[in-house]
């Protein structure tokens, strides 16, 4: 018996696509007049993570874009999931935010249920199962990194629900720029200072070479000992100081002649308006 979707079956739960036909009609009629339909705001990001000697290092830029306009110059893309598990979100800003918040509450419930600190693998599994369930309509790409009882781990999860476990990862529109820095200089078991410099350089590559990324570099260092969140670790794209001045000092131009013409003005109308003062 061939399995096929019965057209008379009502789809309950999940996303409602009732408005998609209306939206399509609206979009075509808008484009006739020259307008474009509003698009979901993507963070247009560079996020990166790497495993170093003592744990995991996560990095992100801080620009949020709305098409070609910078909507937020200093947004936070590194989100808290558990005391020693953080994640960076790229893709559609709202989806990434919601997905990470759901993970954070699921992890808290799981911790209370099992009485154990969470594993990074557990967070990754719940996240990817949720994203797979939404079949890619939740457009968030996430890098999950943390330290648990089994060690330091780093995972990336894509919007359709696939995941990769690697020693270094980059995601977002600036990923290509950032991964090139990692491919050149990454070594296993790097020291903290070298690792910080490497992640900073990778994010800086994204900031300079990708239009969707910019502003500052945020770093998050997760080790067995604890978490260090370095917000605004580096500000490579600072506004330059203005060197010159357009105003001229009085006396720059010599005065040759001076003529004074008094204007005689008559009062023709006088009106008083009362102001409402308490």
């Amino acid at each position, binding site marked *: 018996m061939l*399995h*096929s*979707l019965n057209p008379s079956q009502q789809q309950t739960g999940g996303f409602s696509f009732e408005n998609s036909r209306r939206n399509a009609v609206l979009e075509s009629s808008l484009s006739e007049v020259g307008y474009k339909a509003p*698009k979901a705001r*993507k963070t*247009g990001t560079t996020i990166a993570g790497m495993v170093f000697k003592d744990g995991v290092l996560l990095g992100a830029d801080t620009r949020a*874009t709305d*098409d*070609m306009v910078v909507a937020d110059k200093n947004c936070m893309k590194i989100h808290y999931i558990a005391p020693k598990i953080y994640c960076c979100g790229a*893709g559609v800003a709202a989806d990434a935010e919601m997905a990470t918040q759901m993970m954070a509450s699921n992890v808290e419930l799981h911790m209370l249920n099992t009485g154990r600190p969470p594993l990074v693998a557990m967070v990754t599994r719940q996240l*990817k*199962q949720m*994203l*797979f369930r939404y*079949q*890619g309509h939740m*457009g968030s*790409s996430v890098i999950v990194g943390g330290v648990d009882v089994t060690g330091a781990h780093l995972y*990336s999860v*894509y919007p*359709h*629900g*696939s*995941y*990769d476990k*690697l020693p270094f990862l980059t995601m977002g*529109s600036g*990923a*290509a720029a950032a991964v090139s820095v990692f491919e050149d200089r990454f070594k296993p078991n790097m020291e903290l200072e070298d690792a910080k410099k490497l992640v900073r350089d990778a994010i800086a590559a994204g900031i300079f070479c990708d*239009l*969707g990324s910019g502003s500052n570099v945020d770093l998050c260092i997760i080790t067995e000992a604890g978490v260090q969140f370095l917000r605004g670790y580096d500000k490579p794209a600072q506004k330059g100081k203005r060197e010159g001045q357009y105003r001229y000092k009085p006396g720059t131009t010599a005065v040759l002649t001076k003529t004074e013409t008094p204007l005689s003005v008559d009062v023709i109308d006088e009106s008083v308006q009362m102001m409402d003062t308490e």
Partner: protein
Amino acid sequence: MLGETEPQWLSEEVKTGTTIIAIEFDGGVVLGSDSRVSAGESVVNRVMNKLSPLHDKIYCALSGSAADAQTIAEMVNYQLDVHSIEIGEDPQVRSAATLVRNISYKYKEELSAHLIVAGWDRRAGGQVFATLNGLLTRQPFAVGGSGSFYVYGFVDAEYRKRMSKEECQQFVVNTLSLAMNRDGSSGGVAYLVTIDEHGTEEKVILGNDLPTFFDQ
């Protein structure tokens, strides 16, 4: 960010665009895969192991959509665990392949992944099953993924019956190397898994250790 000209891979589904192969010999099976995962024209993982364990002596090779394939493998891994506890012994390779086939067939409209299931069990020794599109067929060897099209001629010409374990491993490595050379969506390193009654052996062959052919 450039609006509609944003990089393809931001919206593209992640595919494994792969070469996978499994071949049985007297007493076991050999599975092989490349390691490239692509999203659009970008490689997102160059060292992914596409040979996923379903049980101690049953592995599957993933191809197609990465999310779909990983999810199917994970679900069948769970179902096999339950099944083997219920029957009280190691599951048959045919059971694993049937579980994969059931998911592939029921959701064939929604999924786009092809898994080759291969392993060893006490009753029938080494077996290779193809589960493309929801069929279940046992074959002496099976190839799959985008790179397989480039090597159908090679495997058809080079396959001989009753090859030994080492000959099978060499056959798999040669096939993978040829496919990785020609298929843009396959590349990286080659992963090999050999399963027989004594155990499971996993091996990685790095790029420069792969066999070379006339043009290299």
